[in-house]
């Protein structure tokens, strides 16, 4: 359903960050992208959601080329993106942000369900402003909830959803991802370093130094990743990158 062909990206006056990425995300699958810090994962997510324009390459969603579509158009086609670093808004409340995300009014029950999925108690948060007063973990969870709220979801991207989230809520989050996968005909693309997220993946993609290093089913990729981690070797095929 999502297809990337030879995606390259170079920021203005910068070095090439993404160097010809080819990737296919199949319908209804959960794909986890992992890899070393600075490898280009977030850059790739932004390119898929339309926040960055690739310098070369093409993107398709459901057979339609979307390379030239803007963020709004892609969102309306069903692409959602939970930022690695959530944005704060002076004044906007949790309720209004979730309603924007859902594309219309939500009843308290619906908001309760969304916030419950990310482990927040509705009463405490519904009228809070999404501003600097929220803790790192709180804002991250609200960010995730804005993407879970999406009505027409075809492809949902979560950028390090585990970051800053406590262990108890994390279990709930994993459940939410599994439910999403089972319940809706959308695909999930999760950028993560977390073993428990890797364990629920259908596919794992390792990106390092702007390239796809490995791609395959969880059964094929995960054992080697974990082995590298145990032996303290350069993680995630970085061995290759390090030796280069």
């Amino acid at each position, binding site marked *: 359903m999502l297809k990337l062909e030879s995606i390259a990206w170079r920021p203005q006056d910068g070095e090439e960050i993404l160097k010809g990425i080819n990737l296919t995300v199949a319908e209804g699958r959960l794909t986890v992208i992992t890899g070393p810090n600075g490898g280009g994962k977030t850059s790739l997510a932004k390119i898929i959601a339309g926040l960055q324009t690739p310098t070369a390459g093409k993107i398709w969603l459901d057979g339609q080329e979307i390379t030239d579509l803007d*963020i709004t158009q892609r969102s309306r086609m069903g692409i959602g993106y939970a930022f690695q670093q959530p944005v704060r808004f002076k004044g906007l409340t949790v309720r209004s942000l979730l309603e*924007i995300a859902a594309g219309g009014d939500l009843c308290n029950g619906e908001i309760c369900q969304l916030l419950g999925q990310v482990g927040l108690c509705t009463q405490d948060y519904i009228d809070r402003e999404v501003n600097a007063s929220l803790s790192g973990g709180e804002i991250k969870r609200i960010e995730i909830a804005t993407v879970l709220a999406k009505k027409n979801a075809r492809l949902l991207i979560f950028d390090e959803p585990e970051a800053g989230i406590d262990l108890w809520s994390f279990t709930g989050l994993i459940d939410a991802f599994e439910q999403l996968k089972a319940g809706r005909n959308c695909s999930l693309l999760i950028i993560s370093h977390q073993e428990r997220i890797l364990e629920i993946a259908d596919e794992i993609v390792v990106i390092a130094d702007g390239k796809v290093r490995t791609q395959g089913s969880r059964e094929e990729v995960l054992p080697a990743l974990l082995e590298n981690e145990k032996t303290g070797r350069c993680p995630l095929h970085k061995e290759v990158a390090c030796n280069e």
Partner: protein
Amino acid sequence: MNNITQKFLEIVSDYKGSFDGVAYNIREDGGCAGRQSTEHIKIESKPDGPGLVITIDPHTKGETVYIPACVTKSNINDLVYNDFYVGEGADVVIVAGCGVHADGDAEARHNGIHRFFLGKGSHVLYKEKHVGTGSGKGLRRIDPVTDMVLEEDAVMEMDTIQIRGVDRTTRSTTGVLKARAKLIIHERLMTDGEERALTDFNVVMEGEDSKVDLISRSVARGSSYQEYHSKITGNNRCTGHSECDAILVGNGKVNASPELYAGHLDAELIHEAAIGKIAGEQILKLKTLGLTQEEAEEKIIQGFLR
């Protein structure tokens, strides 16, 4: 009262056809279009000039008094002096909205000078909403003056909103705080087109452990211009905080000059100010939720001025 006044009342005073059982005075084009006192809140004309004396008995609780003023045509320059005496221990809401409507080439102006004397331990929520309407070329002008004296332990919360339609405004607010008195001001302001707005706050904390919190949020759109001055003086052990945030859209311009004066070693005064366009990442986030650029800006501004 005429239709325009009626419409204004709906906007500025939550008016739903009548003011039942509450104290009110409706000012329309310089005259009185209705008045009612209650057992504990007396509204009387000033003997010596335009305006009212509003006397709220000590320990009056839970009552609301409405003092709206409307200018419904061009070529009116309305000036009014209203004095509010709030008795000790009273706890009331005062709603004093204002609408100006210009239908011709001449100016429509309301100039309301409100003085508040809050007795010991009293609590007032003061709501003030300003709007301008009408397609006349004449300027719509509202120049409110609000002077407050808070006796010991008095608390005043002032909630002031002016969103669109007022071409020129000069808003002057002063406060003097005695011991343990607390003043909280929330200002929300939006200007557009060629509108100009001047805001001036001057608060002096005389009493020990008095406190002021001044929060101003404004949006300057079109080619509008806003000027913001605030001065907080602490002459005793006290805390003062002011926060001024302005968003620029298009060619809007804002000049903010906050001032703090500490006349006592234990005066703690803080000012925070930020002016700038809407953060790009906020727009990006809302676009990923399916909004267009314009829709995203609108939502951000709506939330900001909430």
